[in-house]
């Protein structure tokens, strides 16, 4: 396996590391999948807990060319010279990275992987760029909306408070926040009675964007993996499931959407056992992904199986 440090972008101010399996055989270009690991917030391109380094090496061993880089103003990358807001510059820079990798190695087919806000960028670029054939969203955040607040309360009661002795004591001794308890229970009932309840309380433009994105993924046959840590604050997958209910079910049914839960990890995938679990989920999905796109898949599968 080989790692190359590179500076790229319009003024070569973006910095990243490309990892490949070291055969040097990048001439078999059509068979190679380019994987981009997108960072979150102010994170460095090694990722939280250096997990992007491990992931890049694992995927490179499978035959992929993996590129992890820092968005402008983060990691080793310099600041942008224009005034483009970060929400747009991350999309622009991800596409610059894809252009760079395409020029350098000839790869035309990309999988994007991102954690937290990197998952949002992953989602947005997957919608906007037809070169993206698959996307992995790790702990995608949910928007700050009414539905998210309802889910947070719901998860607190159903995953934690219900099984906590002290909470039951507080309930019996009239010390609970009954308004909040009732809100969570009534939201649960409403969601049973009205399957589109979540959709109805959300801003129409958000619902519209997610719905259209999912429709576009289905048309283009883009595959999606959502990996979520088991915690009441990891709501991204649940949000999509509730808000884009029909499209979510349809994508799952057609095998385009997979979901996995990291039972023992926090948001940044600590401790180590959770990291290993995440690496396994993603590499297993990559094998399926390669089988799915049969025209390019044999190389990666062979790499994994030998």
């Amino acid at each position, binding site marked *: 396996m080989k790692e190359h440090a590179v500076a790229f972008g319009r003024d*070569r101010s973006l910095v990243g*590391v490309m990892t490949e399996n070291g055969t040097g055989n990048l001439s078999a270009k059509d068979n190679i999948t380019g994987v981009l690991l997108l960072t979150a917030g102010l994170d460095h391109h090694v990722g*939280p807990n*250096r997990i992007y380094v491990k992931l890049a090496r694992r995927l490179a061993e499978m035959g992929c060319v993996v590129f992890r880089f820092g968005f402008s103003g983060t*990691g080793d990358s310099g600041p942008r010279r224009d005034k483009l807001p970060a929400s747009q510059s991350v999309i622009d820079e991800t596409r610059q990275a894809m252009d760079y990798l395409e020029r350098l190695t000839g790869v035309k087919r990309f999988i994007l992987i991102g954690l937290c806000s990197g998952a949002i960028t992953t989602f947005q670029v997957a919608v906007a760029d037809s070169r993206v054939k698959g996307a992995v969203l790790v702990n995608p955040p949910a928007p700050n909306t009414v539905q998210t607040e309802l889910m947070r309360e719901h998860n607190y009661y159903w995953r934690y408070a219900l099984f906590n002795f002290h909470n039951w004591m507080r309930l019996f001794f009239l010390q609970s926040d009954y308004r909040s308890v009732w809100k969570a229970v009534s939201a649960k009932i409403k969601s049973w009675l009205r399957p589109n309840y979540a959709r109805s309380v959300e801003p129409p433009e958000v619902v519209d964007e997610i719905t259209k994105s999912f429709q576009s993924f289905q048309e283009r046959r883009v595959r999606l993996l959502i990996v979520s840590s*088991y915690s009441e604050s990891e709501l991204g997958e649940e949000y999509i499931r509730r808000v884009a209910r029909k499209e979510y079910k349809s994508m799952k049914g057609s095998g385009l959407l997979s979901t996995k839960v990291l039972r*023992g990890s*926090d948001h940044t995938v*600590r*401790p180590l056992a959770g990291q290993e679990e995440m690496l396994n989920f993603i590499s297993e999905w990559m094998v399926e992904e390669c089988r799915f796109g049969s025209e390019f898949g044999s190389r990666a599968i062979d790499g994994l199986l030998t």
Partner: protein
Amino acid sequence: MDSAAPLYEAAPFYFGVSPKRLYGFHHPPQVSLGKSSAVVICAPIGQEYIQSHRVIYQLAVLLSRAGFHVLRFDYFGCGDSEGNFDQGSLVQWTKDIHTAIDEIRNRSKLTRLSLIGLRIGATLALRAAVDSPHVDSIIVWQPIFDGRLYLEELAEIQQDDYQGTEFQKKQIRDPSVMETPNEILGFPMTSELKLELEMISLDALKLRPDIKVLVFCNNEGSKSVGDLSRFLKNHPHADFHVIADQSEVWMLYRRVTPFSSLQYLSKWIDTVQS
């Protein structure tokens, strides 16, 4: 010279010999002031490095704007360097500092050097300075002089961080997990590394008397000053500075850049090297 026009391009690269190649980032001088020394920055390890990475980048930029060649690099098994964290050791990482010193000397064509070390990087920088004839000044920023205390602090932070998680529930079921953690904040902690950290001692270190030293720490860090003052007792060129802004840039979720601290460090290097 136009201060906006860099003399060379800042660039990432790998150096050293495979399978222990190290990732480095050379910040060349942004102005030609004829500085006669270069700077190597020695980072912390593990989660402390993840948290402080951008501050170290900003310190390097500041020093390059002051006219210095600066090398930031990742130890073996850390950051972008080859290897896995559990293959690393204090001995290996001290060797890596020597490799980095050789690299920046080749690139800058300068023979004199300053080292700046943060946390365990400070401790490693002191060790490397003992064996290097090229180092003539060193900044130790919140150094680790008591490895046991350091491990206890990290374990405490980990306990707070894992509050309420499945990992903590596992620890409650099996207390031995808590007593002998084989990982610290998302990074493996091998028994060999743990032992090395516990054995950290300054007693055997003999710095050349002509090396200028700045100890830079906050009130919390100054608890180690007892050890340090023993170490520096007879050192003719030792400064001590308590950080005013109290930024603990290596801690989880801080992400605040202490510009006044970085300026102080840059100015100190500039002064001792002029």
